[in-house]
């Protein structure tokens, strides 16, 4: 069965800390995505990657960076956490392209609180 695993369900950090969110998929997907989900704003794309060491900015990349050293793992990094980065973070993966309507598969999210 398809599996996207996010390392933490809940995380509490302090402002100014460097925060790492980890995501692993076991489906050999080329694409991986990081979103944040906020009430009333839906899912907003932070960064995505279509290959190892490749990355592209999404709609809200400011304050974030990513790392993809291996195909199955995609990390989101908050360089210096701020309170406005308190949110639910969702990782997703998919095959490259949408031939046969390949869906994005999501993890269950990490709820991050920055104090």
């Amino acid at each position, binding site marked *: 069965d398809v599996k*996207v695993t996010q390392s933490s369900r809940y995380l509490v950090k302090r402002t100014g800390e460097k925060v790492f969110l980890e995501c692993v998929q076991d489906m050999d997907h080329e*694409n991986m*995505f990081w*979103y944040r989900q906020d009430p*009333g*704003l*839906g*899912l*907003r*794309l932070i960064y*995505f990657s*279509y290959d190892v060491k490749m990355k*592209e900015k*999404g*709609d809200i990349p400011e304050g974030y960076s990513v790392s993809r050293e291996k195909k199955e793992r995609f990390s989101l990094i908050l360089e210096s956490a701020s309170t406005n980065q308190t949110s639910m973070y*969702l990782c*997703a993966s*998919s*095959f*490259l*392209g*949408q*031939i046969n*309507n*390949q*869906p*994005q*598969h*999501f*993890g*269950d*999210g990490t709820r991050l609180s920055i104090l």
Partner: protein
Amino acid sequence: QQQVKQSPQSLIVQKGGISIINCAYENTAFDYFPWYQQFPGKGPALLIAIRPDVSEKKEGRFTISFNKSAKQFSLHIMDSQPGDSATYFCAASTDGGATNKLIFGTGTLLAVQP
């Protein structure tokens, strides 16, 4: 910049009723329109999707209606059940699916009352 507008924000429907969620878009380059369903504590999962060459797609109790000229599409849930209570997101893709990058609507929280 919100490119996919979704309404309503929340919806309460009685068991057996029809739930209708609407989305509108501006970018005529969009060519793939999926709907995702999210239960509490879980990530979203693909429910049903449509491409603009058809006006309707039905899968069980779920139907997408697509109006290309109006740049609108909607999700209809027939015979709504309490188990359908979830958040629903519409989405759109603009690049022919090359990167599978999606733009999501703001979500609709559906509650189906028994």
